[in-house]
């Protein structure tokens, strides 16, 4: 077996080559969007196109100055922030209960949460549109955030469940024997340990809401979010506006995914069980 090292090396080189190729497949399209958004509107409409940005802020300036854009941006942030608070506020207690207690009805509850995955959730926006008109929640930040919470909540429950499961019960019990109440033990022992993970799942909820298109477009008219604004102006807006809009939509998502990258795999590993 004298050829073994050479054989191994070739295999490793092939692996690396394929990884780089697939990396390029992911990164090149994003790069091209960046090139478009950092070029002047004239360059975006010109042909043939340069494959390098001219670092002209014309397109982005045109987009940000466009009527309704700043408002849409603000709405997107507000809805996503509210979704984040609601889904963690509702989901984290449930995740804690699932990880710490055995009780009748636990499996039915898990079924309810898993069931949400088998349903096309954005469709919820259709009946809720009618319901919201009756309750005065139509075209409001809160109304849309409630719908987005139903999208993000199942994830928040499963992720926090896996986070709390990762912390040994003994730690909590030790705190109880030392005289802490359940709430104190939770605040002083468990919370500091899970806080980074909770932050990650909160960010995940934010991204789910920030990216959502269908429900946002159905439920908002005056108070459009960025995705709803872009979708509804797709067939009328000029190219530079679309690309700059796409760029503004992608940028925070990229940063957020970078921030939560350590948790992505851990949370799916346990969510499968």
């Amino acid at each position: 077996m004298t050829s073994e090292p050479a054989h191994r090396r070739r295999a490793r080189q092939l692996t690396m080559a394929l990884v780089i190729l697939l990396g390029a497949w992911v990164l090149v399209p994003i790069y091209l969007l960046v090139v478009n958004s950092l070029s002047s509107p004239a360059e975006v409409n010109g042909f043939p196109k340069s494959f390098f940005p001219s670092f002209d802020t014309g397109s982005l300036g045109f987009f940000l100055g466009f009527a309704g854009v700043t408002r849409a941006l603000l709405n997107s942030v507000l809805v996503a922030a509210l979704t984040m608070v609601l889904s963690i506020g509702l989901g984290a207690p449930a995740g804690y209960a699932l990880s710490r207690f055995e009780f009748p009805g636990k499996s039915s509850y898990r079924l309810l949460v898993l069931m949400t995955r088998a349903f096309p959730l954005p469709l919820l926006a259709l009946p809720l549109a009618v319901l919201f008109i009756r309750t005065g929640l139509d075209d409001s930040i809160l109304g849309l955030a409630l719908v987005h919470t139903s999208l993000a909540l199942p994830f928040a429950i499963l992720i926090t469940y896996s986070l709390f499961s990762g912390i040994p019960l003994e730690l909590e019990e030790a705190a109880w024997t030392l005289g802490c109440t359940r709430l104190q033990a939770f605040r002083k022992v468990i919370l500091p340990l899970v806080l980074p993970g909770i932050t990650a799942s909160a960010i995940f909820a934010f991204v789910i809401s920030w990216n959502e298109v269908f429900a946002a477009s159905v439920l908002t008219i005056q108070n459009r979010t960025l995705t709803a604004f872009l979708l509804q102006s797709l067939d009328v807006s000029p190219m530079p506006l679309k690309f700059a809009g796409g760029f503004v939509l992608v940028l925070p998502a990229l940063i957020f995914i970078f921030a939560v990258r350590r948790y992505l795999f851990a949370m799916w590993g346990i969510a499968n069980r």
Partner: protein
Amino acid sequence: MGSTRLPYLLLLPSVLFLGVFFLYPFLLVAWEAFNRDGTPTLAHFQTMASHWKFGTALTNTLLLAAVVVPIQLGLALAMAVLVTRMTRGRDMALYVFTIPLGISDLAAGIIWLAIFEQTGFLNSMLQAVGAVDGPRIWLGYQDKATIFLAVVLAEVWRATAIMLVILVAGMGLIPKEYKEAAEVFGASPWQRFTRVTLPLLRPSLQTALILRTILALEVFAVVSALGGTNLPVLMGETYVWQFDLQDRHVAAAYAMVILGISIAFTLIILRVLHVPKEART
């Protein structure tokens, strides 16, 4: 407070929420699809089915899912295997592969529009190598095939990451001993993959396939960005009926169709990739 009541109190808010904003709306949408002024009817389904776009939208949606999901499964498995074989740069590769996870379908559509539009990067590249002598239209109303192809590329590009994450997480749960045992018994890498990894990965494959299939049936913004109304899909028609044609009953009928297909596929996947109860971790 007894700890028998505590778990229920902790679950209560989320149960109430899912009841009001998940179960109740689905009952409502079913009611809207099946009634006219309070009496049960199938008229909305007839209106939906007799519109010329329904057949095309249904075919396009199913065809897209049938093409996109298998490609994504293959690609995600390949990526997952590649990553597990890497010794250096593993985290970097995983981060890059999962970037599209944070990108919305609308943004993905816009990204691929930058490539396929008339003055886009594809034409610029073809011009540079002399393959065309002027910008060619790829996404015009007559170019159904290229619009379809562009949507497939955008979907594969954007949504393979979610499958990858689930599969990589699932592979991490497989005990190393199985692989080592297979190696000891002289199994080739390919045999180890098909006889050990794949069967043990079944729960993750199940989750990944169900999630992706349902999302594929909901395809909407990518198609709007790339094809406008030239490539009707179910979710797009739902939007058109709700908004442009202002008939929420027909929109609800569309919703029931999407829901029905989603549940059917979920059941099929659960059946085909059945995980025996004893094998669940």
